[in-house]
C-alpha cells in the first residue's frame, strides 16, 4: 500500500478536529480543579453549550452571538454548581452529578424544537493557503477560529498558572485554602471565578460540537466526551501541556475507529466504539499507579469544601 503523505496530513487534521472539544473542556476543568473544586458536571455543561450554541445560531442567525451565548449558558449553569458548592457548601461529587443529569434533561427539553434543522457553515481562516504545502497546509490552514483557540489554550493556561500572579493565587487556593485565606485572599471569590471559567470553556466545547464538528443538534451528542475530558485532567497530572497530548491520543482513537470501519477491518463496530473508554481506563491505571506522583501533582484541597467562619 502506498501511503500518500497528503492523506496522512488529512488524518492528522481530523484527529486534531476531534481533539478540540476535549482540549477546551479539559483546560477549563483544569483551572477549576486547580482552585480545589472538583466539578463532575463537565458532560452536563458541554451538552448545555451544544444546544445553546445551536439554538442561538438558529434563532439569531449570528454565529458570533451563538458562540458567546453558548459560553454564557455554560457560565449560567455552572453558577448553580458554584452557588451550591461554595455558598451552601455541598458535596462536590454529588452536586456535579446532579448538574450532569439536569443538563442532559434540560438540553433535550430545549433541543426538541431543533432536531433535524441543518446547521450553518462556520467560516474558516486561511482557506486560500490550504493547498500550498503538501503535508503541512491542511494541518495548519483552513480551520475555524475555535480550532486555533483550542490549540493555543493549553499554552495560555500553562503561562497563566505558572507566570501570572492570579495563576499563583488560583494554585494557592487549590493547595491550601486556609493559608490563602490567612493571606487575605478571598477563597470563595477565586473558586467562584474558576468554576464559572470552567463553565464557559465547557460551553464553548459543546458549541464546537454542535456548530462546527457536526453542525446539527442530536440528543446526547456529547456522548461521554465530558467524562473523557475529566479523565484527561487526571491523565495530564494537572499540567495543561499534557492535556494537548492526551486529547490528541483520544482524538486519534475516535478517528482510527472510523478509518478501520471504512477499511473493512473485521472487528465488531461496538468494540471500536468502546476503545476510547477502555483506553481511558487503562491510561488512568497506568498514571495513577504511582500514588506518590499523583499525590504530589493533585491540588491538595481538591474536592474538599472550605468554610470560613466570619
Amino acid at each position: 500500500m502506498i501511503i500518500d503523505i497528503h492523506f496522512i496530513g488529512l488524518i492528522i487534521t481530523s484527529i486534531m478536529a476531534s481533539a478540540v472539544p476535549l482540549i477546551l473542556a479539559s483546560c477549563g476543568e483544569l483551572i477549576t480543579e486547580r482552585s480545589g473544586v472538583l466539578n463532575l458536571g463537565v458532560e452536563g455543561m458541554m451538552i448545555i453549550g451544544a444546544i445553546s450554541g445551536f439554538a442561538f445560531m438558529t434563532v439569531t442567525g449570528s454565529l458570533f452571538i451563538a458562540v458567546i451565548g453558548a459560553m454564557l449558558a455554560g457560565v449560567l449553569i455552572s453558577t448553580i454548581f458554584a452557588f451550591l458548592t461554595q455558598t451552601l457548601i455541598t458535596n462536590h461529587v454529588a452536586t456535579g452529578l446532579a448538574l450532569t443529569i439536569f443538563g442532559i434533561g434540560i438540553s433535550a427539553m430545549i433541543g426538541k424544537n431543533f432536531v433535524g434543522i441543518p446547521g450553518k457553515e462556520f467560516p474558516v481562516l486561511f482557506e486560500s493557503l490550504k493547498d500550498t504545502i503538501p503535508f503541512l497546509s491542511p494541518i495548519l490552514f483552513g480551520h475555524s477560529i475555535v480550532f486555533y483557540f483550542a490549540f493555543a489554550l493549553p499554552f495560555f493556561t500553562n503561562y497563566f498558572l505558572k507566570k501570572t500572579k492570579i495563576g499563583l493565587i488560583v494554585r494557592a487556593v487549590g493547595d491550601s485554602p486556609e493559608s490563602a485565606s490567612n493571606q487575605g485572599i478571598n477563597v470563595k471569590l477565586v473558586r467562584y471565578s474558576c468554576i464559572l471559567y470552567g463553565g464557559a470553556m465547557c460551553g464553548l466545547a459543546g458549541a464546537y460540537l454542535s456548530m462546527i464538528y457536526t453542525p446539527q443538534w442530536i440528543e446526547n451528542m456529547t456522548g461521554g466526551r465530558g467524562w473523557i475530558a475529566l479523565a484527561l485532567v487526571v491523565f495530564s497530572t494537572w499540567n495543561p501541556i499534557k492535556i494537548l497530548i492526551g486529547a490528541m491520543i483520544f482524538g486519534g482513537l475516535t478517528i482510527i475507529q472510523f478509518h478501520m470501519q471504512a477499511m473493512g477491518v473485521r472487528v465488531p463496530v461496538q468494540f471500536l466504539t468502546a476503545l476510547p473508554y477502555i483506553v481511558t481506563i487503562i491510561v488512568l491505571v497506568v498514571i495513577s499507579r504511582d500514588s506518590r506522583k499523583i499525590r504530589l501533582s493533585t491540588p491538595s484541597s481538591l474536592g474538599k469544601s472550605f468554610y470560613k467562619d466570619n
Partner: protein
Amino acid sequence: MIKIVKRDQPSRAIFFLTPILAIFLTLVAGGLIFYIIGFKPFEALKFFFIVPIADMYGFSELLLKATPLCLIAIGLSFCFKSNNWNIGAEGQLTFGAIVSGGVALIFYEQEGFYILPIVILAGAIGGMLYASIPAILKTYFNTNEILVSLMLVYVSKLILDYLVVGPWSNPEGFNFPETRQFSDSARLPILFDGLRIHAGIFLALAAVVASWFIFYKTYLGFQMKVSGFSLKTAKYAGYKGKKMIILVFLISGACAGLAGVGEITGPIGQLHREVSPDYGFTAIIVAFLGRLHPIGIIFASLIVAITYLGAETAQIFMQIPKYTGQVFQGMILFFLLASDYLLFFKIKFTGLKK
C-alpha cells in the same frame, strides 16, 4: 436582620425533613419550568405526578419502576456510606443482565424449578464481577473509581449491543436487536394478572431488610460508618480498608445485577438493546434522597419512580418532552443538597439593628 450561625451538631430532625423540603421545592421549580415552556403549571404537575398512579395499573407500574431503583440504591448506599463513589451502577446492571440473560438462553425451551435461581444468581455474579473492576483498580492501582465505573457503563452498553445484534440475536427474529424469549422457568413470575409487577419486588424488599441488618446490627456496618466519617479514624482503628472497599463494591454490584435480572426476566423476558432507562444513574439520586437509610430509600424510590411515569404520561397527554423526568431528577438532587445547608447552619431572624 438575618444571621447565619453554625450548628454545634447537625440537626437530626432536619436530616429527615430536608428530603421533604427538597421535593416541595422541586415541585415549585417544576411548575415554574412548565409555565415558562407554555403549560398551565398545576395541570402539568397533575399529569406528571397524579394521573399516572391514579389507577391500579398505574400503581403497579410505579412499583415496577421503583423496584430496580430501590435495589440499586440500597447497594449504592453501602458504597456511599463508606465514601466509595461508585457511579457506574448502570453498567453493573447492564452486565448483570447480560450474564443472567446468557444463562437464561442456555436453558432455552427447557423447564425446571432450578432454572430461575441459577438465572438470578448469574445476574448477581455478573454485577459483582463488573463492580469488582473499579474496586480492584481503586484498591491496588490507586485509580479513581468515579471515572472507571463510569467508563465501564459505556463499555457494558456496547457489549450488550454487540450481543443482541450479533451472536445472541434471535435467529427467527427478522434481525431485530433482541434475543429469543426466555423459557417460562427462567422468568420471574408476574404477581397479578393483567399487571406487570413481578416477583423482583421481593428481591428489593429482601435487600432492604438485609441492608438494614448489616448497617445497624453488624460490625461491618459500624466499620463502614466510621470510614465514611473519617478514613483516618478507620485506619487508626485498624480496619482493613482495602477489603472493605472491595466488599461494598461487590454488594452494590450484586444489587445492580439483580435489578438487571428483574428488567429482563420480568415482563419482557428477553435481552434487548435498552435494558434500563438509566436506572443506575437515577438510583444515585434515590440513595441520597433516602438519606442512605433503607426505609428512606423505599420512599425515595417510589417518589423518583413517579418522575419516570409522569414523564411518559405528560408526553402522551401534553406533548411535554419525556426528558422533563431527568430535569426533575436533577432538581431533586440540587434542592436536597442545597437544603442540607440547614443541617449545619441555623438561620436566625434577629430583628432590625442599627
